[in-house]
């Protein structure tokens, strides 16, 4: 089973610190910037429930995104089970975004991005309410349900 980031909606206060710090992790070329649009986790406010939802990839055991990718840019790491997008191979066709019923893949510029579970994720460290945790991928059904109900 893959590691993944687990989100607890009752604890989220919509502060977006996870997005700020995720984007730093992926700052490139020595340029250090807070760029929420580059974040691989996205927080949104659900209307009318008022719930705040952080969308972060569930690392599905049978990923629909991988299936639809025309360039085979998406693969599953054989040892960790984490689903990864090879940026250079991505053409930005957005088919994976369509296919992900949990709303956990995003466009950033010309490529699709998603959570690939960092070793020591800054999003988890930044979360002020411990709404994010690294877990082994058991019991994803509850989270699947939450994301389906609150698709971005």
């Amino acid at each position, binding site marked *: 089973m893959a590691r993944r980031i687990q989100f607890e909606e009752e604890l989220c206060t919509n*502060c977006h610190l996870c997005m700020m710090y995720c984007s730093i992790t992926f700052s490139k070329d020595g340029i250090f910037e807070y760029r929420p649009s580059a974040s691989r986790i996205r927080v949104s406010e659900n209307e009318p429930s008022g719930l705040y939802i952080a969308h972060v990839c569930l690392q599905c055991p049978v990923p629909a995104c991988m299936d639809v990718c025309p360039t085979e840019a998406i693969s599953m790491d054989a040892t960790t089970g984490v689903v990864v997008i090879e940026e250079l191979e991505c053409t930005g066709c957005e088919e994976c975004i369509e296919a992900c019923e949990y709303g956990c893949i995003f466009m950033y510029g010309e490529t699709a991005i998603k959570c690939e579970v960092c070793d020591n994720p800054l999003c988890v460290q930044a979360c002020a309410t411990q709404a994010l945790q690294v877990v082994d991928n058991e019991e994803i059904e509850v989270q699947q349900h939450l994301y389906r109900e609150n698709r971005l």
Partner: protein
Amino acid sequence: MKGWMGTVLRVDLTDGSIVKEPLNMDLARDYVGGRGLAVRMLYDELPMTCDPLGPENMLVFINGPLTMTGALSSGRYMIVTKSPLTGTICSSNSGGYFPQAFKCAGYDAIVISGCSNKPVYLWINDDQVELRDASAIWGTDTVVAQRAIKSETHKEAKVACIGPAGENLVRFAAVMNDDSRAAARSGVGAVMGSKNLKALAIRGSQGVRVTNPEAYLKSLTISNHVKESELGMAFGEFGTPLFVDVMNANNCMPTKNFQEGFFEAGDEINGAEIIDRTLVRSKSCYGCALNCGRNTRLPEGSKYEGRGDGPEYETLFSLGSNILVGDLEEVTRMNYICNELGMDTMDAGATLAAAMELFETDRLTANEIGFSLEWGDGPAAIRLLEMIGRGEGFGKIAGLGGRHLAEKFGAPEVFMGSKGQGFAGYHPRGMVGIGLLYATSPEGGNHTTGNTIQRELNGIPEPMDPFSGEGKPEYVIQRQNETAFVESAGLCVFPYMLLEDGISLVAEFYSAAVGETYTTRDIMQLGERVFNIEREFNRKLGFSRKDDTLPKRLTEEPHPEGIGEGNVVPLKEMLEEYYRLRGWSNEGLPTPEKLSELGIR
């Protein structure tokens, strides 16, 4: 230097021109950003004698170099303009999510001038900027307007807008963003209304660069430290409403238009009541771990309906204790009305309190208002607030502000404010330093320009006798300079007030962002420069010592029974020492020597 985005957007509503220009980095270095930089820009550009509600006035939306960085609670922006409420320069600040979109769209400031001949809103999608027709949404409340503009533009757009109060030029109209966040004070919403500008909608996808990442990773630890401190936990659990108890216990909760400092029904409108009865969930601004915000609704079975945010402490005072309304449902309803119609709950309350005192003393009659307005009459207060926001009947007169109302009905002394702006919820007879703050704030009765609670009431880092003027001028100056920097940098004042060494942390964050070393002393001097340019601005508008006043209720009428009994505010003594320590003349004006020492030209 990093931290700033490097671009200023200028929009002239008269001819519809939209121009991007590089940020003047010399000015940014000297005046930081936010409040400081905007005041300096207006000092150079604004025709001083302009009518605040005329086309010549300018409106600056501005963030700071630390906005949207990892510095604690960095999701703030300011609106700076010449205030229609006070006639002074003013800065009104707000949090939420709009400031993030604003900065990430790539701009440090948006300078708005002129007046459109029809209602418009400004749509900024990163570098694409356009003015759009707002005729269809003119007249809508702030919740409806935000929703409509989002659906016309982009689901990720963040909107700051005015409601009917701003359109009707209510002198204390607010600019609302992200549902219920408010740049509330000084009537900035009326300036927008006078320009026929309904809203700004912004979507931003750029990044904010800082020089030294390690310093910010450290901030995660500090952020957790603040959050888990006693103060931080209390803040997260109760938000600002916890202060109802604190102020009431200290006999400092302004009650019945500041006649008293203790509200008998305080327990009915305190933080615990809100948790029990109206709280949906706590919420944060962008990038803030404190989550002091309160998302609330009036539960089923209430007298009224509605949902939104708050009320915050200031509203529980201004539309609660200060007008003797001790019913949480009524105060919450009034809070929602102010948010929806887009007006400042604090000056709305100051105006209502003055009106109730005028009514009690028969200077103002039911005939003139249209109904009677007794102390504590929530339904009547609700009715009057709606009339103010919608510009109906007597609401038109009340909408000109509490000072105007009190003067018109022959009792200027019943308006509890300074320079025309109502006071915040800290009774100066029970903590006299705040009286000096109110009297010397550039925009009148404002508590955010350097709150003195931490020493006067909390005794942190060292206690100070709240009833004596001794040492207060020095402390108020320190707090004013600190806060001037914090608000110029684009930060929220809250976490830095909670930390004993808050200002050195600010210096560290600032250095790490811009890539040059700034000491605490440097930061304090930048803050002092900002405070002095504001004073110099007001001097040009004719303000001086004669305007640094408090109503005689605070300086002559003794505090009633309880803590601080018999006390009054020793304003005159404090003021003289304050001017001396500021390096200002006895008339309260910055001397040429002081200005040159601070490098203000």
